[in-house]
């Protein structure tokens, strides 16, 4: 089946009117996608630590049980941290969603095929790990339903959003890790977060 969803539009739909959603993005394309949708201090875009996006989301979700946390990452990044789906399944954080924007490619390194191109089904892995909801998203209606689930339902929630393998313009977030951390904590915890 040919993938039809476009990554920038899909991420823009998921983040539109995001209210107080906390967002962690895996390195590479998903970090650029969330920035294209509108940079925010409550974005934590990664520039490294490949394979760790979902775990940062878990630590944040457990620390902030009253806030919804969305991890947006790529298929290659998720594959590198597949064990974290099992770790999240054990913890059952109700406020955590992990959404993989799956273009079946390593987009930053020459568009080489990832395991998902050969049919590895990440949604089934997440389901087997105990995610409350685990969906494969292929069209606009399913994407709208996913958006509603992220903002309303009890998790942990997982989705594998199949998108066109395409090169899109780079929209880069700040890259100084200290600044990304400090602005996030200030926006979430208040002015005094790093002054005490």
């Amino acid at each position, binding site marked *: 089946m040919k993938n039809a969803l476009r990554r920038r539009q899909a991420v823009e739909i998921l983040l539109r009117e995001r209210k107080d959603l906390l967002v962690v993005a895996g390195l590479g394309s998903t970090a650029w996608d969330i920035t294209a949708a509108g940079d925010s201090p409550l974005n934590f875009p990664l520039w490294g630590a490949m394979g760790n996006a979902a775990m*940062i989301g878990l*630590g944040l979700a457990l620390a902030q049980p009253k806030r919804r946390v969305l991890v947006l990452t790529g298929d290659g990044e998720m594959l590198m*941290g597949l064990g974290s789906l099992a770790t999240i399944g054990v913890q059952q954080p109700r406020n955590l969603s992990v959404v993989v924007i799956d273009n079946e490619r390593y987009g930053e390194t020459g568009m080489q095929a990832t395991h998902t191109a050969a049919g590895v089904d990440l949604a089934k892995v997440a389901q087997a790990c105990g995610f409350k909801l685990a969906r494969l998203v292929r069209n606009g209606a399913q994407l709208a339903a996913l958006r509603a689930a992220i903002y309303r339902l009890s998790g942990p929630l997982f989705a594998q959003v199949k998108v066109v393998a395409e090169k899109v313009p780079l929209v880069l977030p700040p890259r100084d890790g200290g600044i990304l951390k400090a602005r*996030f904590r200030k926006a979430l915890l208040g002015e005094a977060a790093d002054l005490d």
Partner: protein
Amino acid sequence: MKDWPDAIYKTLKDAGVRQVGYVPDAGHKRLIELCLADKEMRAVVLSTEEEGIGLAAGAWLGGVRGALLMQSSGVGNCINALGMTRECRFPLLMLITMRGQKGEFNPWQVPMGQATPTVLEAMGVVVHEANTAEAIAPTVDAAARLAFGSYQAVAVLISQAVIGIKSFQDQASR
């Protein structure tokens, strides 16, 4: 002094640690049990040690202090993720039970155990060694102050001399 794990637990409580990621190790058995039993703490079993680097980073972003328990063989798994800790100046408190030191019976543990301090220091982690049971809790206390007060990654290496040397005979008799 056999209750050094209890002393570590009290030190973590006093330091305000509320999330503890761990990959089990025999040397951390008692401490893990104490953390799991504590309703104010979230003990998170990890499938591999580098998950704990992300977990602690996420916790800090959310205003919560974390600690990470592992044995020395897991340190190598953390290396690339530690680049994030350093770049973002995330506090990190690692409590590492050592293998591959004096009297080790498993040769496969020796390379990583011997390389542990070098590897951590190469990634900018401050290393504190605790070589006696009495030294462990004060060392963890100092490490927690350095980590959370000065936004540093700090590892406490708990010597194999304290934990005891495993042998095939010991394991067979359990």
